[in-house]
């Protein structure tokens, strides 16, 4: 079994991380487009201002212009990292015991939920649309045994592989349970020679 040298809060002692899943890169790219567009606009205005506004630019207005530019760059840099935090810390962790979903919304909302493999009943993957089909990303729905909400992996890369991995781990977990039950039964059952 391939394991990853990472660690998350609440990880059990012998629990091994099998896979860490973030949303597809297209998701963060679409969020960062506004940052890229504004950065290009700022750099462009910085380069083109002397050409077009040459006669209006006194040392005083030039200083004010530069001050506004750097202030905008600081805002963009902070905003880009807020988007990054929302993306990078919104994560699904598949371990040998369970699935852990850490949901990060902005800076102040963080929700962690988990699902053990023995609770998994059904796993479905869904790829909808032109770009998701081309880039191979979509959703994975994990139906649990109880009347709980479904576990949803949103906009993840290669959803079919993730679905297969969860199904495999769920099957392994069930066969482990069956083995434990069988060994417990054999231990408790009276010996035929007795």
């Amino acid at each position: 079994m391939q394991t990853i040298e990472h660690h998350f809060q609440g990880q059990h002692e012998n629990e091994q991380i099998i896979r860490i899943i973030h949303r597809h890169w297209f998701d963060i790219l679409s969020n960062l487009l506004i940052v890229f567009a504004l950065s290009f606009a700022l750099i462009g205005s910085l380069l083109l201002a002397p050409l077009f506004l040459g006669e209006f630019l006194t040392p005083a207005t030039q200083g004010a212009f530069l001050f506004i530019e750097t202030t905008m760059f600081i805002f963009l840099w902070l905003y880009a990292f807020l988007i990054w935090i929302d993306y990078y810390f919104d994560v699904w962790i598949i371990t040998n015991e369970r699935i852990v979903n850490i949901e990060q919304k902005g800076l102040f909302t963080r929700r962690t939920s988990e699902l053990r493999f023995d609770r998994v009943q059904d796993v479905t993957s869904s790829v909808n649309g032109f770009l998701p089909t081309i880039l191979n990303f979509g959703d994975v729905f994990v139906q649990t045994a109880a009347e709980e909400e479904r576990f949803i992996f949103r906009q993840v890369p290669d959803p079919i592989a993730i679905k297969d991995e969860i199904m495999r781990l769920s099957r392994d977990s069930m066969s482990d349970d069956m083995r434990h039950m069988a060994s417990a039964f054999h231990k408790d059952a009276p010996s035929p020679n007795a």
Partner: protein
Amino acid sequence: MRPLFGLLYTFLFLSYSITALFVVFHLLRYSLSRTSAIFMTSLFLLVLIVLLFSNAIIFFSLPLDLIFPQSSL
């Protein structure tokens, strides 16, 4: 006029700094690997410090009396 702009700039600077502190806290506290936490925090702080430093230098060299000559602030 300069004290008022100074006050406004201090407020702006504090806003940047508090947001940056929260970002650094998240990067260090919730990263799944130590290496990526250190890399992301270093990149974030390096660029931010350069930007903040140049922003402060430009602000303090602004000839505010020339930019707002008739203001009574």
